[in-house]
């Protein structure tokens, strides 16, 4: 244990040093083999928590997790007795790293309302690992996030990325992981005022992309009034070919049916639904189409005419029908930050006790913030659980990760121990006593 603490201390960059020197260059430096023993282990794949389990990772990847896992010789051993050891959470749909403060337009890169580009937009180069939300949410147990652009002038908002929340500049796990499209009320508005207009735009843009494939030289993608630029056309070909997943925002049951019907015309599409507040009404169809859902976690209000049937049982009913589900802050105010997803998942457990509701078991609920969103985006072999071979995103919690009183005590991303302070903890510590001392607060 003493050895482990020493090693932890050396693994952790001094927060002050990190602050001064900026973020470390990369996360390529690995730290040998680590075994975390004695804790309650939450794999993240839907299985029940395992008492007195062991998690072993080496060179940034999970080796094994569970009961009866041997501690390899030479491993750094961390005693987690009385604690939980869980997969890092994957935030289902965020603007992390794209905004500093969402309401400050100058700092907000989530949408481009005056850009001639749509599908061709690629957010990866714009993601800022020093955005304060990264460290704040890491302290809440989030280790990866699905980051998406938002609709601008086209129903196609562009290509989103999957990132890690590590304390280094190497932030993008997968660039161009998906294309985002609006096909509900928002899609109708962007397309000029109606859902039919959105579908006309969709079919026309995909048709133009096919024109581009047939004859790039003849394609008029550079004209001032061209609806589709060349970059957009290439991005849409990747969608048509199934190389890039198509994340479709749709809430209403009839909209979801229409989205599922797209594969009749475009058979290679790899669809993912976002929001899907009325998904439970068409759960069997979604399951049959094998389309995963990144759902509004707890939407239960008829917030719009496309969400009339909203209920907190949506996720449970989708899951019961066999749909792959991750949850997100879509449909909720995300001002608390993405760590609120643990609370949302806990609520999905809570409703299982309420007569008439369809909730989730603890393991299934935790899955909606771990392997669920990872699978929805096609990365379940890489992130989202403590199964062997996954990236070693491991969080040690002082209690049940979904419980409101719990907090992470140590976070590992790609096997590297992360600093456990943030701008928020520094503000807190500065003002533990609000009064000025012998010098102003600015000197503390």
């Amino acid at each position, binding site marked *: 244990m003493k050895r482990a603490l020493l090693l932890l201390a050396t693994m952790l960059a001094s927060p002050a040093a990190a602050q001064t020197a900026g973020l470390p260059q990369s996360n390529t430096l690995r730290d040998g083999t680590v075994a975390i023993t004695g804790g309650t282990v939450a794999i993240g794949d839907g299985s029940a928590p395992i008492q007195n389990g062991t998690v072993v990772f080496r060179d940034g990847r999970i080796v094994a997790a569970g009961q009866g896992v041997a501690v390899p010789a030479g491993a750094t051993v961390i005693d987690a007795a009385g604690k939980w050891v869980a997969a890092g959470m994957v935030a289902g749909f965020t603007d992390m790293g794209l905004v*500093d*403060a*969402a*309401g*400050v337009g100058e700092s907000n890169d*989530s*949408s481009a*309302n005056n850009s001639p580009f749509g599908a061709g937009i690629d957010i990866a180069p714009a993601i800022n690992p020093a955005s*304060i939300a990264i460290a*704040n949410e890491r302290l809440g147990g989030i280790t990866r996030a699905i980051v998406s652009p*938002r*609709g*601008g002038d086209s129903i196609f908002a562009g290509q989103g990325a999957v990132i890690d929340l590590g304390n280094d500049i190497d932030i993008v796990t997968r660039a161009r992981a998906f294309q985002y499209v*609006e096909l509900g*009320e*928002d899609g109708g*508005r*962007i397309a000029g005022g109606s859902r039919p207009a959105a579908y006309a735009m969709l079919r026309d843009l995909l048709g133009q992309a096919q024109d581009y494939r047939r004859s790039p030289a003849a394609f008029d993608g550079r004209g001032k009034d061209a609806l589709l630029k060349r970059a957009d056309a290439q991005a849409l070909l990747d969608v048509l070919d199934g190389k890039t997943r198509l994340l479709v925002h749709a809430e209403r*049951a009839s909209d979801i049916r229409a989205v599922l019907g797209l594969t009749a015309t475009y058979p290679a599409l790899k669809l993912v639904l976002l929001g899907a507040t*009325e998904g439970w*009404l068409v759960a069997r169809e979604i399951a049959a189409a094998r389309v995963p859902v990144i759902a509004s976690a707890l939407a*239960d*209000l*008829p*917030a*719009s*005419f496309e969400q*009339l*049937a*909203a*209920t*907190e049982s949506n996720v449970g009913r989708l899951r019961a029908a066999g749909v792959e589900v991750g949850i997100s802050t*879509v*449909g*909720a*105010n*995300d*001002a*608390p*930050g993405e760590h609120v997803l643990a*609370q949302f998942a*806990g*609520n999905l*457990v*809570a*409703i299982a*006790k*309420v*007569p*008439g509701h369809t909730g989730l078991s603890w393991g299934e609920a935790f899955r909606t913030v771990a392997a669920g969103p990872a699978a929805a985006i096609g990365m379940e072999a890489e992130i989202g659980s403590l199964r062997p071979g996954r990236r070693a995103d491991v969080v040690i919690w002082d209690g049940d990760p979904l*419980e*409101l*009183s719990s*907090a992470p005590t140590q976070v590992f991303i790609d096997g590297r121990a992360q600093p456990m302070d943030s701008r*928020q903890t520094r*503000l*807190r510590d500065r*003002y*533990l006593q*609000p009064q000025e001392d012998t010098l102003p607060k600015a000197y503390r």
Partner: protein
Amino acid sequence: MNGLEGLRLPSPDNFAQRAEGMTGLDKPAGLPIVQRNEKGDRMKTRWSRAGAATAAVLALAACTGGNDRPRSANETAPKREPGPGLGKGYAHDPYPSTYRAYPGVATLVRNATVIDGEGGLIQNGAVLFADGKVVAIGQGLDAPAGATVIDAAGKWVTPGIIDIHSHLGDYPSPGVQANSDGNEATDPITADVWAEHSVWPQDPGFGRALMNGGVTTLQILPGSANLMGGRSVVLKNVYSRTMQGMKFPGAPYGLKMACGENPKRVYGGRNRKPATRMGNVAVDRATWARAAAYKRKWDKYEVDGGTAPDRDIAMDTLRDVLSGEILIQNHCYRADEMAVVLDMAKEFGYKVTAFHHAVEAYKIGDLLKSNGTCAAVWADWYGFKMESYDGIGANLALLEKAGACATIHSDDANGIQRLNQEVAKARAYGRKAGFEISDGAAWKWLSLGPAKALGIADRTGSLVAGKMADVVLWNGNPYSVYTRPEKVWVDGALLYDANDPKRRPVSDFELGQPGSGDVK
């Protein structure tokens, strides 16, 4: 426009500009004459169609004579009329509550963990209520004959939750433009508007807050587009055909004020004053100066009689703030701005009852304490706009540590369904900062604190004999994420029962639509 709006439920606070529609204010057909007893209770109401001059005459019988003074030449009254009496120049309660408690039965909930709302917790305790009032709490209470007895082993009983900051009814679901009635964003000073005149009693959000949140009382505020956004209203969380049928009897009004980014953005963006924070304060001060003059005129008239001054509906509200009848509920984020507002309140002789949002309140806990001003805050919202950039989860706990009055609030149709969870999170942040808050003490952030800041703590907010039986039975520890309300009583009437689909409100809007009557 971007896709943000459809995906996020914008807080009316974040997006103050979203309500832009003009809503013409109809002039009242006449003036109700309300008389109050010493406690301020409404005694009777009569309606006069002839305005304030007649009001003075009608009130004559209740008053003693005035003194003789020279009359101005244009005064039409044939002889000197004595003053109408303080507070009687015009109605102060023209849209009176018609709320009546629904029938309940005497009920004893026993074998429960009871949080009394005053800071205490009773293991294996009991709560007895009858005729809409709390009768007793404690251990070993006996059930009166005919009482319903509920064995609550493993369950918890608490006072109903009070949300001091909601826009339900004013920004209802569905959030379509036609329903967007929370910001009269046509002038930075709209002290003349009353949130109650926008409340749509069929907002499905009321039912969600009751069933999932255990919320029994809530304050509906105008939005924060304006420096003075209008009057708030306090409601019992009980569906009614009318707003008046929900109105908390006798609750003081609030005046919603806002400092900071929203007013200056909304009006500066139209090249109007205020466009800066200093402009915000300048417009506020000019308005308070007018209000002081208006108050002097009306105070003099109500003492001395004579010709009634002209009515100004906005100034009526500000006069009542200056006389302490209406409470200031002030949206404000930054510590330094709150300090300026506190000085402005001293300059004009009013009190800031509570700062709302107050994400930087933790920086000035001592100042808030010395001013006797509460902070109503979120647990962990931060970083969504410039003035929220310094938000921290320990805000509430640090305020408690500083001895300042603090409460949780929602400002959100989803958040209002989980205020108990927000407090649980706030406690956890406090623990991380080395500060423990007990189960009993933390509930004060949820009911007694808000009740005090709303001026209704003598009637609700804790389980004290004689108070309203606003009670929640939780199916476990309400600070746990795994706990939900099982039963909710408002004034002793059982209005939600998780085990009885017939005790689950379905608003008119939802009736007959997809999901109608479903669990929510």
